[in-house]
């Protein structure tokens, strides 16, 4: 399946992309599967969204979709159908914390 992902500005620069990106994910669509596919397509994003060793989400990064905060969902929980079907993007967002 082809999944739409919106990256924050700094990560778009790092990945050298403009606007929304799409990534192909096989099997069940979960946060982990999506981030694995995203990092495979854009290796510069490795370590920028989640920790290298633990795969824990970085503290100032949030995951939203379908007007819901998915940041604290388990990494292997299925993502919403609307994301899987390409109707809604998966949003990777830098927390609003000054800067």
């Amino acid at each position, binding site marked *: 399946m082809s999944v739409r992902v919106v990256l924050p500005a*700094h990560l778009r620069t790092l990945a050298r992309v403009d606007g929304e990106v799409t990534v192909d994910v096989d099997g069940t669509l979960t946060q982990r599967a999506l981030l694995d596919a995203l990092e495979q397509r854009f290796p510069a994003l490795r370590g920028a969204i989640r920790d*290298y*060793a633990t795969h824990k989400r*970085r503290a100032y*990064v949030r995951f939203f979709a379908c007007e819901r905060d998915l940041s604290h969902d388990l990494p292997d929980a299925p993502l919403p159908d609307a994301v899987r079907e390409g109707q809604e993007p998966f949003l990777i967002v830098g927390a609003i914390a000054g800067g």
Partner: protein
Amino acid sequence: MSKVRILAGTRKGAFILTSDGKRKDWKVSGPFFGGWEIYHLKGSPVDPDRIYASQTSAWFGQQIQRSDDGGETWTPVGNEFVYDGVPGTHQWYDGTARPWEFKRVWHLEPSATDRDALYAGAEDAALFTSNDGGASWKELSGLREHTTGSSWQPGAGGLCLHTIIVDPNDPKRIFIAISAAGAFRTDDGGKTWKPINRGLRSQYIPDPDAEVGHCIHHVAMHPSKPRTLFMQKHWDVMRSDDAGDSWREVSGNLPTDFGFVIDVHAHEPETIYVVPIKSDSEHFPLDGKLRVYRSRSGGEEWEALKKGLPQRNCYVNVLRDAMAVDRLDKCGIYFGTTGGQIYASADGGDSWDAIARDLPAVLSVEVQTLR
């Protein structure tokens, strides 16, 4: 015709300033990596167009960028900084145990003989090395695993390894400094380390002359005298003439011996520079007057250098890696401030000009002298 290239890391990106050997007219390019904190950039002595940069963000972590064309274009290389084995704990500010956690790279030190080899000093304190141009990194864990490691504690900026000096005559001898653990030396290329803090006294730790726990801000060496080291400690300017085995205070007549930077003249190994800062609770110059102090005697006797520097209402800081010297015949001295100025002296410090005034807060300054 010689050329000088300044590599400035700031809170919001990197900037490169270039001039010919006259050092009068400067071209400023950047920001590179706008919006990111650039803790440090440094060029390879072997290939000056090979430049490494530490790009970091509390949001998005650590990146290492590399340029092979003197900073015109950049490529992200490896950023997998993983501690060797299961890291233990160090002291937190309140004295409790805290697990080691990688946060960022403070300092990059390229090899003097191999363009693809370099060291990286990290927070939480550790030394990493790469032999493939920054594509992959390995920790020299003998340092972090030193028996004193569990007692190291962060300074205000974090538990950072900020100084890396490789002995030009013996690449297996490396000096590093950590806030707030102290200075360490290896004589076997990083396998084993010894604290080199004898002679330091710090009133903010339970035992003022303890083996470790000292908040060292920066250390400098002249390549022609690798056994002589100069140190700006939290308080106190120190020197060692036995490769760090012992230190003596050389603050002398400085108006305050708190500060962050220290550096050595390119051609005069006993001429050193500091920027005195009022105190550890007021990080700005005394009386609003920005002054570099120069000693031509390796310490003790200092003279104020103020021509061209603001002498009223100046309340900036000069951070630990934000001073550097060029190697032209008439040695140039450069430093950056938290107010976004970069000051340059083309006459060894006698007079100064602001060659950039409104950059983001400057974190680091390095200089390349290009022939």
